[in-house]
């Protein structure tokens, strides 16, 4: 089969062969004449500080950034298209692979959207466990951010300490879900398995020791004059720009907008938890660092509340036509066997309609938009990932600053290219 050749008409017909990304950058939009003194340099796609395969075309005047354009798509695997060819329950493992630093958050966002389409009631125990593991995922993701951000700027030691704590968390995830990273733990209707009995004590031990580790990171970094000078006053983003450019999550709160999906539009029972939302008015790389360091401590608070208030009960909703029966029932009851066979071979129909779920992921607001046409496969799954929008603000943050500051700014917006390119 050959693809249909289409005439591209309209405003998009600008020379498709042009690879000069800067040609469309902010300087050209403002019609400023090109300057003989500037130089265009290529940063990435294989650059250690871009946290993945991100290509930045940077126009510099000496060492000052004049214009910049991110070029993405190197990791595009067409996950949204693949979702349309899978049953609803088969999409869950795909969502892990979008943002590999917060798989449980992705699972949760997708499952919330499908549960909204189905109108499923989730048992309270499952909701508490979802909150618990989402907050542990947030800590884990922020640890990777802090380690790599510090390493980019030259504070190599912090990276080793961050990954030491991350290892503890990954071991907990492995004990709970059977996988360190691609957990697929949250399922439509609840959770895949009951966590092992001894895991709660391990989580408590981790949470007891963790605040001291945060103090340790702060001690290592905030007494370091190089770290302070590289962060303070760099990459300023005003609250107006943050909203106009679609920035969410910690960078938005560091610019002074007090909005957190967990508190303001609660999902999965977050309304039952008491926590503060750290906000800063400074708006630079330093403010984003401070906000995330506070979030470590708030996440610990939420995890402890989830452990203390964890109710007894089921971890799966009561919907035999949607949720796989347990093995015991399947082997003893005819109906359960039929349901199991039907769910595995032909999936389950979801009432037609559309639903949007929104969660506060470690990197910002993550939305899943799922459209159903009544069949067992989603008609359309769209992910609104925080990094995709935040990347647009990069030029605003870097313009007029030194080239070396670009590295600090990329670290501060905490992007994962897997979620941007999908």
């Amino acid at each position, binding site marked *: 089969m050959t693809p249909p050749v289409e005439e591209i008409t309209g405003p998009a017909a600008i020379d498709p062969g042009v690879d000069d990304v800067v040609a469309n950058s902010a300087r050209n939009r403002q019609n400023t004449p090109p300057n003989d003194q500037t130089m265009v340099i290529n940063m990435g796609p294989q650059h250690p500080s871009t946290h993945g395969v991100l290509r930045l075309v940077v126009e510099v005047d000496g060492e000052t950034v004049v214009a910049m354009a991110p070029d993405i798509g190197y990791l595009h695997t067409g996950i949204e298209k693949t979702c349309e060819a899978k049953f609803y329950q088969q999409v869950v493992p795909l969502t892990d692979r979008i943002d590999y630093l917060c798989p449980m958050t992705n699972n949760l966002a997708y499952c919330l959207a499908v549960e909204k389409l189905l109108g499923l009631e989730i048992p309270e125990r499952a909701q508490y466990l979802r909150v618990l593991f989402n907050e542990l995922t947030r800590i884990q993701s922020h640890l990777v951010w802090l380690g790599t951000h510090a390493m980019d700027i030259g504070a190599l030691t912090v990276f080793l300490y961050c990954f030491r704590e991350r290892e503890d968390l990954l071991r907990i995830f492995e004990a709970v879900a059977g996988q360190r990273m691609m957990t697929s733990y949250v399922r439509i209707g609840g959770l895949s398995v009951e966590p092992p009995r001894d895991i709660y004590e391990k989580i408590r031990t981790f949470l007891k020791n963790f605040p001291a580790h945060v103090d340790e990171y702060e001690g290592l970094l905030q007494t370091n004059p190089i770290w302070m000078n590289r962060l303070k006053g760099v990459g300023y983003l005003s609250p107006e720009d943050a909203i106009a450019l679609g920035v969410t999550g910690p960078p938005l709160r560091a610019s002074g907008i007090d909005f957190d999906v967990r508190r303001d539009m609660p999902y999965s029972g977050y309304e039952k938890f008491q926590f503060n939302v750290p906000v800063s008015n400074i708006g630079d790389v330093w403010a984003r660092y401070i906000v995330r360091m506070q979030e470590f401590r708030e996440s610990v608070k939420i995890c402890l509340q989830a452990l203390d208030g964890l109710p007894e009960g089921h971890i799966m909703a009561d919907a035999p036509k949607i949720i796989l029966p347990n093995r015991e029932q399947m082997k003893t009851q005819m109906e359960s066997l039929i349901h199991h066979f039907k769910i595995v071979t032909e999936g389950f129909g979801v009432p037609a309609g559309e639903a949007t779920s929104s969660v506060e992921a470690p990197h910002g607001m993550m939305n899943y938009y799922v459209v159903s046409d009544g069949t067992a496969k989603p008609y*359309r799954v769209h992910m609104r990932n925080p990094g995709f*929008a935040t990347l647009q603000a990069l030029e605003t943050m870097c313009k007029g600053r030194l080239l070396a500051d670009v590295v600090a700014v990329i670290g501060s917006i905490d992007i994962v290219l897997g979620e941007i390119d999908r």
Partner: protein
Amino acid sequence: MYDPTSAIKGKQAVFAALPENAAVKAFAELATDAKFDRAELTLTVAREDIIAAGRAAQQAGYNFLEDVTAVDWYPSEPRFQITYHILSHSLKERVRLVVRLDSNAASLDSITSIWPSANFYEREVFDLFGVHFGGHPNLRRIMMPEDWKGHPLRKDYPVEGYR
């Protein structure tokens, strides 16, 4: 379980059921159809009105554009459904705007003049669905290579691609 009769459909029914909603108040003129389903408000606007609709939403307090995406209803017409999710930080709620486009007129105005963040979102829709956005400052492919043929998220594009 979801009860299909709980959905409120039609402009008149929705506007009568939610008279206090800020978006409903702002869209009395602009909306051509409305739906309130699963506690989510969807307003349909005409293709020509999208910029006016964006401004109306912004003035009603919906200050944050979350995303722009599309759904391909091939082979039925109107084929493309462009979906805008707009959030209000102060009201703490979102509204979904929908524009339906026929396959022979798959283009509409860009809303980058209202929310610059629409830049990447609209490029993505252009790249993967082939819908044109008039007045967009930099309408080029974003995910696929520049010389790619076809638009992968269209329903008539095979999942395995062309071999």
